[in-house]
């Protein structure tokens, strides 16, 4: 789908508003939600790369999220490194891990892909709980210090917010460039028609692998930042709840559609908070929305809109 011509202006306005948000409110609660929203959005957008673009339903993102969180925490607390090193460390570990996993599983069937990625995510949760020597088991690693940069300490929500904002914008910008490049074009071609891609001289393997790895690195770094937002990491960081949240954002927006997923991310984080639902009720609503979308518009809002557009076009052509 082509973007409306005003898209760049809308993006600039959105960025300006986001940058001004901490000065517009004194509520730590609002800023806190915005931090979560920005980080979740980056993770969801990278899931969109794997599922929406490459067509692989990966539950492994939850595992990479957790690995990233733990790597960052351990780098700071146990290795005495800075927050920035920790985030980079999270990215590098996820790069290696996802490359190893990806080389093996991008060759399997889609059934096997789902099962193996799901298992990896659960395994990561078990390791967080059981490998007490490294992860400190169920107690987790509390007291993660606030990041600092050249003497400036990001010790309030409003300050930490800018780390989340910067990360999210960089990640989304990168994914946008990827999406609109030849690579994005070919990735979505792979999803639509794998044999045709091969018949045109493009081996799909490297593209699927690249999508998987890039998504894992971004998700891992997002996890690292989120852990420092929470100031503690324990096995609940690998709760299936996070995976469900990322999935919901991608599914509602419409897998494979960049802006729709960004908008859906904003909506799904802000709306339930604005309506002050309890956590359980929010997840029930997520579930209802997920089922409803799957039943009535399986390609999400953007897919539904596109179908309307194509139907209109067909009519016009007749």
């Amino acid at each position, binding site marked *: 789908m082509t973007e409306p011509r005003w898209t760049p202006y809308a993006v600039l306005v959105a960025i300006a508003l986001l940058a001004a948000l901490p000065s517009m409110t004194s509520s730590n609660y609002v800023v806190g939600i915005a931090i979560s929203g920005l980080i979740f959005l980056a993770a969801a957008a990278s899931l969109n790369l794997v599922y929406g673009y490459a067509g692989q339903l990966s539950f492994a993102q939850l595992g990479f999220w957790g690995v990233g969180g733990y790597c960052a925490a351990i780098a700071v607390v146990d290795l005495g490194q800075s927050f920035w090193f920790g985030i980079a460390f999270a990215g590098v570990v996820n790069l290696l891990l996802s490359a190893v996993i990806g080389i093996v599983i991008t060759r399997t069937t889609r059934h096997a892909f789902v099962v193996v990625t799901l298992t990896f995510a659960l395994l990561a949760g078990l390791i967080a709980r059981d490998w007490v020597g490294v992860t400190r088991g169920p107690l987790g690693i509390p007291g993660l210090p606030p990041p600092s940069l050249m003497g400036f300490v990001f010790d309030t929500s409003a300050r930490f917010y800018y780390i989340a904002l910067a990360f999210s914008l960089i990640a989304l910008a990168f994914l946008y*460039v*990827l999406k609109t*490049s*030849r*690579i994005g*074009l*070919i990735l*979505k*071609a792979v999803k*639509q*028609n794998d*044999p*045709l*891609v*091969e*018949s*045109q*001289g*493009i*081996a799909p393997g490297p593209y699927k692998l*690249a999508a998987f790895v890039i998504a894992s690195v971004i998700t891992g770094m997002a996890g690292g930042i989120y852990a420092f937002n929470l100031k503690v990491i324990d096995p609940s960081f690998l709760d299936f709840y996070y995976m469900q949240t990322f999935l919901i954002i991608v599914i509602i927006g419409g897998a494979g559609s960049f802006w729709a997923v960004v908008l859906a991310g904003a909506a799904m984080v802000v709306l339930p908070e604005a309506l002050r639902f309890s956590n359980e009720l929010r997840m029930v609503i997520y579930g209802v929305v997920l089922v409803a979308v799957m039943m009535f518009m399986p390609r999400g809002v953007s897919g539904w809109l*596109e179908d309307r557009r*194509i139907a209109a*076009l*067909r009519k016009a*052509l007749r």
Partner: protein
Amino acid sequence: MTAILSVADVSKAFSGVHAVQGTSFEVEAGSITGLIGPNGSGKSTTIDCISGFQTLDAGRVLLGERDITGQRPAEIAKAGMIRTFQNVRVYDSYSLLDNLLVAGEAFRDLNWFDALARTPRYRRVRDAAEDRARGLIDLVGLTRLSDAPATVLSYGQKKLLAFAAAMMAKPRLIVLDEPVAGVNPTRVNEVADILRKANATGISFLIVEHNVEFINSLCHKVIVLEQGRKLTEGTPAQIRNDPRVLEAYLGIARPAAAEAEAS
């Protein structure tokens, strides 16, 4: 004349059933060669085998001088042989232009850095590819729809798009699997003209098709398959007058068939 494609003793069986057994033939460089045969004679399997979508049980396939036996489809396509599919395949949600861009070889072979950083080289290659794509869309007569998603096309139009995509990769040989099945009969001659024009630029064709008129008007040579074996080959006129071909198509039981084939 040199051969652009040489198929030698190719065999393929599916759980004991021989779909192709010991078929050999050549496609001469610069020619349009037809591959015909009754349903189940192994045409599709033959194409799958030479394009790498099926692994061979035995035999060799040469593209020009290069041995492509057992290579992956993508490697074979890069080596210069592009195939289309019987059940037409296009990227449904992409515009016709994007359909062709994906297929373009210059675009395909751009490195990742250029693609991500949008270097001048990238833009140059992309613009050139776009020009070429628009030219091909004109050639197959779909100009009006070039920015519409491919899903709105009719079956026949999709066949034309698939052909344009095959051209986009600048191949030496195009293997077309039923290019006019489902195409509006009034447009079959147009398709034949387009193929002739492409052929005049030096591209060789191997065409599987049931439309006998189409094959006769277009092909320099026709190969007839029956039950996974080559029955005969010759000019369209020779094939037309060969009683064995008629019998193969009409399926008349003929005890001597085995001997005739063996000879």
